[in-house]
């Protein structure tokens, strides 16, 4: 155990290298800082994809390493988006209201500005008072803290309740899905204080940066997303590489045995659950300013299942697999559903990919689960000429289990 962090995680350097090359390349090709080869909307798509990769990284940590299939991480992702969206919307509306009020004879009182903002934001849901959840919306630092705190505390409470009563396996999956559904239904109400069905909009206009054009802002957000992804990768790689990583992998493989060895299984699970919720929330806080709009449909249970799909296709239990899966599937998905994929004419029927992409995705997902449980990441094993030991389907012993994980890595 004397080897350095980087030696234990050879993928980190490769990953950071590729990520920085990618960022540099996109910057050079962008409209704002380079040869204007890539459109602003495509750069936004790339930036959003990086955020999704970060969320997938969190999903890989909780599912691939700790064995908890959470179907609620997109809810944390969206909550992070809501938290930052509240500040974006408030600050921008505040600017508009102050401008409007400055035309009047008397200087505006603080109360008038407050009422004006509330009327602007909540007119659509028929309310005129600022709900108490918007208490901190005026302040960027406080709201940034909430990006971490709200999903973190929610995950902490939910995780504590679920893990202490030893809800595991598919039951936990269904429970997390129920949590997501409850949250989505709650936010769909008009009196939830977050504009119900309408969600928060106009998030792409960053207050204070009104003079900066969107093509510059999109590149800045791409940099921020890439930076966050790089940091997230370092953090998660560090978490899974040490003794802590061994324990959570052991929990995945045989929870009861770890408990009997004296480890606090609930504590480890709770830590991982909360940490990944926070990472997902930060990813969401970077994602939604690029998307421009957030509404409760974003945290429908299906979104979280897609997150699991990306990780599974990319290859769970390896960090770069999650990133590859999220990037590949979400980019392909936007390519297919954007109507840019060529239709296939079969003579009697034309396959229009806008209609058939989901079917292809669903079936390929079944295929990956059945035939390539390692996902795309398994290809790297082939490249390196490595295979998992073939044990003819017999159960692996406890010692061999951890060894196999190492073999698969190096």
């Amino acid at each position, binding site marked *: 155990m004397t080897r350095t962090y980087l030696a234990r995680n050879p993928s980190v350097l490769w990953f950071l290298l590729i990520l920085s090359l990618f960022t540099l390349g996109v910057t050079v090709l962008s409209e704002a800082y380079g040869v204007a080869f890539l459109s602003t909307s495509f750069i936004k798509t790339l930036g959003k994809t990086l955020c999704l990769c970060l969320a997938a990284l969190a999903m890989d940590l909780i599912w691939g390493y700790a064995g908890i*299939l959470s179907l609620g991480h997109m809810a944390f992702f969206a909550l992070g988006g809501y938290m930052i969206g509240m500040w974006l919307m408030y600050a921008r509306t505040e600017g508009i209201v102050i401008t409007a009020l400055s035309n*009047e*004879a*008397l*200087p*505006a*009182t*603080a*109360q*008038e500005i407050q009422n004006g903002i509330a009327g602007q934001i909540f007119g659509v849901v028929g309310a005129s008072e600022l709900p108490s959840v918007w208490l901190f919306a005026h302040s960027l630092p406080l709201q940034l803290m909430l990006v971490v705190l709200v999903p973190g505390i929610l995950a902490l409470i*939910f995780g504590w*309740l*679920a893990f*202490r*009563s*030893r*809800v595991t*396996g*598919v*039951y936990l*999956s*269904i*429970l997390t*899905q*129920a*949590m997501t*559904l*409850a949250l989505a*239904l*709650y936010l*769909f*109400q008009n*009196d939830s204080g977050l504009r119900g069905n309408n969600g928060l909009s106009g998030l792409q206009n960053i207050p204070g940066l009104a003079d900066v054009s969107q093509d510059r802002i999109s590149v800045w957000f791409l940099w921020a997303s890439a930076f966050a992804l790089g940091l997230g990768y370092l953090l998660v790689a560090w978490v899974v590489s040490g003794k802590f990583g061994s324990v959570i992998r052991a929990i995945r493989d045989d929870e009861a045995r770890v408990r009997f060895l004296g480890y606090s299984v609930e504590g480890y699970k709770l830590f991982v659950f909360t940490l990944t919720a926070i990472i997902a929330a930060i990813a969401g806080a970077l994602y939604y300013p690029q998307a421009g709009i957030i509404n409760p449909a974003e945290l429908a*249970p*299906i979104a979280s*299942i897609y997150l*699991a*799909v990306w990780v*599974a296709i990319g290859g769970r239990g390896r960090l770069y697999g999650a990133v590859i899966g999220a990037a590949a599937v979400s980019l392909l998905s936007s390519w297919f559903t954007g109507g840019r994929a060529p239709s296939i004419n079969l003579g009697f029927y034309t396959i229009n990919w806008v*209609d*058939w992409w*989901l*079917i292809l*995705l*669903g*079936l*390929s*997902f*079944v295929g990956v*689960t*059945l035939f390539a*449980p390692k996902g795309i990441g398994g290809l790297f094993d082939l490249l390196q000429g490595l295979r998992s030991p073939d044990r003819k389907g017999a159960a692996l012993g406890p010692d061999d289990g951890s060894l196999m994980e190492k073999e698969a890595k190096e």
Partner: protein
Amino acid sequence: MRAALAAIVLALLSLMPLAALAQTSPPLSAVQIVEDNRAQIEKPSRQTIGPVIAGLAGSGDPQALVILSAWANRGLGVRKSDGAFVLISETADGYVLRALDGSDAGTAARADITELRPNAGVRGVIATALVQFNLSDPDPARRADALTTIARDPAPELLDPLRASIDAETDPVLRARKDRLNRLLTLRFDPDSATRIAAVESFSGDLGLDLRGALNPLLATTRRAAPLGTAIDGNIARDLKPGSDLTEVEAYDLLVAANLAPARLTPAELKSALAANITDGAVAGIPLADLNTQAARNRAYTALEVAGTVPVAATDEEVTQIVAGHRFVLTYSEPDTAVTTAAQAVLTGIEVKLGAMQMADLALDALSLASIYFLAAIGLAITFGVMRVINMAHGEFIMMGAYTGYVVQLFIPNYTLSLIVALPLAFLVTFAAGVAMERLVIRHLYKRPLETLLATFGISIALQQLAKNIFGTQARPLTSPAWLDGALTFNDIVSISYIRVAIFVLALVFLMFFLWLMKRTRLGLEVRAVTQNPSMAASMGINPDRINMLTFGLGSGIAGIAGIAIGLFAKVTSELGNDYIVQSFMTVVVGGVGNIWGTLAGALMIGTLQKGIEWFNPSNTLAAQTYMILFIILFIQFRPRGIIALKGRAAGD
């Protein structure tokens, strides 16, 4: 409003002039009254025609009835040649005329007669006047109509004719109606307090809507205010405390409306008053830049008040002071205290009874929702509960069943027949789909339950999109046969639609079927053996592959039938299954996996819970679902294995 106006007009006008007519002169003939009021009858207006019609109705002349009903039905005209009123009836080329006293008056061409066409308001007044004639009409249908008219438009002067007609009534049903109507009118309009109280109390325990309609105007209240120490006239219901019963703002508005206090100065008015008095960049000596707080603005306004440039207005402290110096009460518009007390007692009784009825209705609703959840979940109780396979495509099997029903209806237009065909067909289609899925996908994943979840989810999105491609995104109808329309009605409040009854029955049938299948058949025995210990079962000669396949197919097939039932009351869309999948899993998990009674208990609990929460906040079903799910998450903390947990070896892990 219109009814009330008409009632007041009639009340005032029918009593006074009639009495005057009766006392001062011998009864006039109907013809004479019409002639006397020629101008009014030719150009009637609802506000002024009252006395004329009342005079006609009260004349006692049988011909008055003929004239009034003719007038209301465009049967009264004016002959242009001599200006005489005539009763007209239309023929192909003109009118047949009769004089007002009933004698024959020949015929006239269409152009020679001006037909009188009273407007709807006047016709209403005439109709009310006619009611008293109709109450004693030989035709029972007309008597019934008259009663309906009175019930719709009750008025004090109808009370006497109604009472007079009761004794002569021969039809027992009409007599009962007349009696009830008499009591309803009595409790509102009778001059004698004791009679009214007796009428009110005679209704004790009655739930009729008409009674509540009669009692509510008696108990209508208004808020009033008076300075402390002065008496408030009127029938006081109770005192109001500013702050708890009504807000200070409401209390003050009441005082302003009663001219007991000066108008409050709203911030907007204050602002415009200040803006109107800006001199040299300052208001009353306070620079504009400093006026960005409410306190500074108040100071400026007070300064202006002192200077006399703006009217005196109440500030917040003054408002509090003024409100404290007044008494606020709720008064009944009905002046008789004894009557309101009796009415309130009866109404309270009604409300208690009504509450019980609503509870019963709520219980029925909850039961029907529970049977829907049970139906949606019973297939899962087999695939998830017994086999422990997480089938996320279960909702899509429900959808497939519903679409099968829709397709069958395209080919068989008879709804009853198509339903009979569709039920087994839906079972077959989803059975086949389930078997195919088990063979192709699930059997490879029995050892990896989490991955089953994901693989079946892949199938679920593929099936959903496929349905969208085939049937489009708009909702398709699955029409229920006519004999399932309508509702089983117990009384005004408690009722349940036949479709829901049918679903309840279907759920019961499936419960019986499941119990029979699992406990009484060879297949059930083998299923239980295979799920408990596959290798042991295999060594006993059972083919686990075949059993798994059949069981999974069975669970899916039941989902298909549930789909038809759900499609009958919900629109069939490709997202139909989505709406039920989480709730179905909840039902099975909450109830306790592996036990059909648990699923039943789970469905009952979720259904009752959802309806119960909806009852607290009826406008918001989303909130009900949210809180229900939160409750379930908490519930699982305390009973992680569900309501009915398997014990011992049957529990497996």
